[in-house]
């Protein structure tokens, strides 16, 4: 029994989890197949899969709604690029401000009220402001995402740097490390695991936020596809767009989680 548990634990995915996932798809299929819900309310999985494959790389259907000829992939590329650009900017700004606030009390006293206010306000409230200031251009969506991501990364970076055992800094100094080495080799590396957790949370929230800000006004993107198709009551395409975006979100989460695990492979992991 112990051997079986060990071999299951070594698998990248729990087989029971796969069964759970299949059961979920089966439930979806059953609800639509046996007309517990109308096709308009819940299109069948096969129909959604067909809509994705037919409209993925090119789509004259989506082009009719001024969504470009690139199909779902072209709109996904727009959404992904916005999320990635915003996250990259936020990581640099959020980590720098978070570390600075953790070490410099005066700076923290100034930065905390601003960041906590930004964290307390329901972020969507700011979306219409960006629409008025920047129009429906890409910058309106990126600005909204940066505001959201920076707040999260800042809080995580601050907490990570504050939680870092001072022994590491003392050891670094004893070994002759200068201030820059202390920041790069002690603070940055020591705080990375916790900061990475924050980045994953920021990324997870960013997909929906980007899609919604596109819904309010954008030249293209998955959110625009959802908006146009919902107005046409084409629930199959709405589901197709949501599913592709969800697949991208899950793929990014898995990829980034794997990359973070690789980068912090020196970490001692708990043996449970």
């Amino acid at each position, binding site marked *: 029994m112990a051997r079986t548990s060990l071999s299951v634990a070594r698998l990248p995915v729990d087989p029971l989890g796969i069964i759970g*996932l299949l059961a979920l798809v089966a439930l979806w299929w059953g609800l639509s197949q046996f007309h517990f819900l109308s096709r308009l309310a819940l299109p069948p999985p096969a129909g959604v899969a067909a809509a994705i494959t037919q409209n993925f790389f090119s789509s004259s259907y989506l082009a009719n709604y001024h969504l470009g000829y690139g199909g779902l992939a072209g709109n996904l590329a727009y959404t992904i690029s916005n999320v990635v650009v915003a996250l990259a900017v936020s990581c640099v700004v959020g980590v720098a401000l978070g570390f600075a606030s953790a070490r410099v009390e005066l700076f923290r006293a100034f930065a905390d009220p601003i960041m906590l206010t930004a964290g307390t306000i329901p972020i969507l409230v700011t979306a219409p402001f960006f629409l008025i200031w920047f129009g429906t251009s890409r910058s309106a969506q990126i600005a909204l995402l940066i505001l959201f991501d920076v707040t999260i990364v800042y809080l995580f970076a601050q907490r990570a740097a504050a939680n870092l055992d001072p022994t590491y800094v003392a050891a670094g100094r004893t070994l002759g490390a200068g201030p820059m080495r202390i920041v790069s080799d002690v603070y940055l590396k020591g705080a990375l695991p916790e900061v990475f957790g924050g980045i994953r949370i920021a990324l997870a929230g960013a997909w929906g936020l980007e899609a919604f800000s596109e819904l309010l006004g954008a030249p293209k993107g998955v959110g625009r596809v959802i908006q146009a198709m919902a107005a046409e009551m084409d629930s199959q395409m709405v589901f197709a767009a949501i599913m592709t975006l969800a697949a991208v979100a899950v793929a990014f989460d898995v990829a980034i989680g794997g990359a973070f695990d690789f980068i912090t492979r020196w970490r001692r992991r708990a043996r449970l």
Partner: protein
Amino acid sequence: MKRTTAHRLTSFGVLVVLAALWQLASILMPYESVPGEPMIPGWQILVTRTFLSLADYWQGGLGVPSVAQGGPRTYAGAALAVLSNSWDTSLRLFTGLTLGVAVGLVAGLAVSWSKWSRRIVALPAQIIRTFPMLALIPMFQLWFGATFLGMALFVAFAVGVIFFTGTVNAVGNVSDIHVDYARTQGASRIQIYRSVILPAMFPELRSSILLSLGTAWTAVIAAEFLGAQTGLGQIIVFAQYFGYVGRMFLVALFLLFYAAITYALFERASRRLTEWMPRELATPDRYGAP
């Protein structure tokens, strides 16, 4: 002076400076979004003309006629508009929040009853949690229309997903020692749940509750942005159509105030429930409320 007092005073000072910077920006950048509507309205405009203009959103009653019925813009009308729309938003928010918490908690506890069911739902729950929740709002509108039920259910769904996964994780992380100790005392499974698991999981569940609060506010505003006839989110989106930045800013301030109050009330309530814990462990883990 105590360190915490000095910290609070500095924080307050920073907020005052921010308000002053807004005022300065309104003087230095006197642009207009539409004729007669400043792009950055100063405080003297916000608390007078802009606040008064919120009377447009009062539907009439209580002796104060609505502007649409030909009544004048009055401070009483503006105050009633703010109160009635805040009430509508809060009702959607707290109905959805209560429903989401109840369903998420009960489903999470039910699934946690056995290790097998916990393993079966772990992967689907992880994937569903990664779903772009805000992108689902058009589906809810398709299913339920822009109704109270649709908006409340959207909030409940967003909160329920977080609460469900949070509960499953929290139960899974309750130390075996506590459970084994109760078992050796002869406690039944229900008694273990009531006396050990529920109190022990609460500290970890606090993060989920804080995350749920932030998500609920975002979800209710998202729902109101797309088709609601009342509510603070609806005022913002209508004001945006006409370029009324002042109204948007004022309503955003109300929302900030309400969100801050809900966080503060929860902090106070949860502090009592975790009095038995060492203070450091009880410190809330607040992050990620979009």
